[in-house]
């Protein structure tokens, strides 16, 4: 595949025609970080490689790494469409408006935007219910912390991240009423230096668990250096830090979705949809819980995973109050997707405010 794309590029460069070989469908991927972040972008790229593997010569993929939000994103998406991409996955929240804008210009190209909410005839959205994984993290974190202080590295205060914090907090609090969350916002998805600084600051303030909603492994390295701090792989398994500090992980598995959507374009059955899948359908999975976690805690965590997967347990089940003390969910009531997708409030007990 690689040889072919090199060859076609060279032929093109020398002006031997526009298309040196013809795949049935060309699929483009726009990444917010480098494919080597071993987190969010790494998993999307694994999905891309799975598409190549699955379809062989029928599908060609192209990608662009570290694409900044705004004008750069729009240019990259447009360029891909003009290079003949039939299906383009834009894999970060900030690509929402550029994706919609490009979709207007290229009505025959199909677009798939990850984690957003704007749809069009040729734009679908897709995301994982990462908060399901956060519930399991919160349980393990609440059981294992000795200082009762949990550090949380937030990227941007958007609903996806706030939801994760609330889910982790609720489940940590349930097993450990003394637990406190300390949240640092760093306003980037991928910046190893900032992520490491945030992790160190949280550890200095007494945290012995680090949860991250950023894409690099820098917080894992900071936890490892501290020696007595546990961490969780984010978006990817981050298995290099097993069995300690990384005691488990949330893994995003995009491959089945990417293959299915590519197949739909091949078959001509692609339609605009909005997909939000969790542990059950397999878009989110829980990475190995290592032996650093006591056996009973591990068993509880796995039981929770299975209950979420088969639909018998929803991580946001009432009674839950909002941070200001007002009622959110009555006993037994579960949160609706609309509220979750727009979540901009903390649940009761979290200190600090969602940045405004």
């Amino acid at each position, binding site marked *: 595949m690689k040889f072919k*794309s*090199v060859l076609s590029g060279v032929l*093109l*460069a020398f002006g031997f025609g526009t298309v040196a070989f013809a795949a049935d469908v060309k699929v483009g991927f726009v990444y917010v970080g480098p494919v080597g972040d071993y987190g969010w972008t790494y998993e999307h790229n694994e999905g891309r490689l799975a598409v190549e593997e699955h379809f062989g010569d029928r599908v060609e993929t192209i990608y662009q790494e*570290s694409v900044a*939000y705004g004008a750069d994103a729009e240019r990259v998406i447009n360029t891909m469409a003009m290079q003949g991409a039939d299906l383009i996955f834009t894999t970060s929240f900030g690509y929402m408006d550029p994706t919609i804008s490009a979709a207007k210009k290229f009505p025959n190209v199909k677009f798939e935007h990850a984690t957003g909410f704007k749809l069009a005839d040729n734009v679908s959205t897709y995301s994982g219910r990462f908060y399901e994984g956060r519930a399991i993290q919160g349980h393990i974190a609440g059981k294992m912390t000795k200082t009762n202080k949990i550090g949380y590295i937030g990227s941007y205060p958007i*609903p996806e991240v706030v939801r994760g914090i609330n889910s982790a907090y609720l489940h940590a609090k349930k097993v450990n009423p003394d637990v406190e969350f300390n949240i640092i916002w760093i306003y980037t998805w991928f910046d190893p230096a900032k992520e490491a600084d945030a992790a160190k600051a949280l550890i200095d303030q007494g945290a012995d668990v680090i949860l991250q909603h950023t894409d690099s492994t820098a917080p894992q390295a900071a936890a490892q250096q501290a020696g007595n701090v546990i961490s969780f792989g984010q978006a990817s398994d981050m298995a290099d830090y097993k069995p300690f500090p990384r005691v488990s992980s949330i893994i995003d598995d995009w491959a089945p979705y990417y293959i299915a959507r590519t197949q739909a374009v091949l078959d001509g059955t692609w339609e605009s949809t909005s997909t939000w899948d969790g542990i059950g359908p397999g878009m989110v999975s829980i990475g190995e819980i290592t032996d650093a976690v006591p056996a009973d805690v591990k068993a509880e965590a796995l039981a929770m995973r299975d209950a979420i997967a088969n639909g018998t347990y929803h991580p946001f089940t009432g009674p839950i109050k909002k941070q200001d003390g007002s009622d959110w969910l009555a006993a037994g009531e579960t949160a609706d997707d609309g509220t979750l997708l727009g979540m901009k409030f903390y649940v009761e007990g979290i200190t600090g405010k969602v940045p405004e």
Partner: protein
Amino acid sequence: MIRLEKRRNISKFWTTVTPVIAVFLTMSFGGLMFGLLLGDFSSAFGAIKLIFWDPLFDENFASYARPQLLVKAGPIILIAIGLSIGFKAGIWNIGAEGQYILGAIFGASVALSLYPQESVLIFPAMILAGALGGFIWALIPALLKVYFKTNEILVSLMLVYVAENILASVSQGLLRNPEGMGLPGSRNLKDYPSAHNSEILVNSGMHWGVLTAFLAVILAYFLFLKHQKGYEIRIAGEAPKAAYFAGINPSKTIIFCMGMSGLLAGMAGLFEVAGPAGQITMSFNSGYGFTAIIVAFLGRLNPLGILLAGLLMALTYIGGEIAQLMLGLPGASIQLLQGMLLFFLLATDIFTNYRIKSRGS
């Protein structure tokens, strides 16, 4: 044995020729790198051609890439021209990125507060507000330098981080799109005709900011060639003592230089937010303020040089993207190529100040 001998005067010939040599060396070593990466040296030439030639002349790419080149180069050139005024006077404004952000916030605020009224006066008012935002942000380090002798490099750089925090705050609060489901980011100004910095000619890439950048190049050229103020600035930079005794007020020079660079950076921010970017978001700024510092020096602080350097820099971005897409080259290899360009420019710069003498051993 070879030794270097300092020239009495800077060589005009080498000043012009060294950038060309640097580009040639970058292409050669870049090609070598791409050949190693791809494991196939016959494709190395193709990669170089994709980056430096195809965006301009290939029929498949040029029609889209040429306008994009202007869109990318416009703000960089506009900021770099402003910075070069200060750099010539030995005043180091490193915080153009922050002034760019404030310009965007000020300008967008005017539009967002008037939404959805339509008037031809809105866009000019936004430009003024954008310029004012950048100007005020640059005035802080200027006044602190004048009155308290603080270091403008540090203050202007630190104010970038303050500006980034203000940007994050207004994206989620003051300027947030009320119809955006509570998510950060303002309304998209592309959907607001009176505020949209649209292309002057369709599909030309030429929006008002690009036009302003070209105008700034011309004005800067006359400022330094013909105008008394340009002369004063040069003297202040080259011989501060002489400038002082000639009655050139250093405080006024500081305020003028910082203010001008802030003003142009602010305008660049406004044109970007009202045009290509469309909205205020937490990650609106993408480093143009820092890239412009490099471009200012690449262009040797000469307005025409900055114009060419800005276009060349934009070419490496646009062409680099095409090469990534076509050949699957890693993004970091394009940054390495940009790094090579700067490295070779600085390395060959020695010929402008020194001549090589050889003598028998």
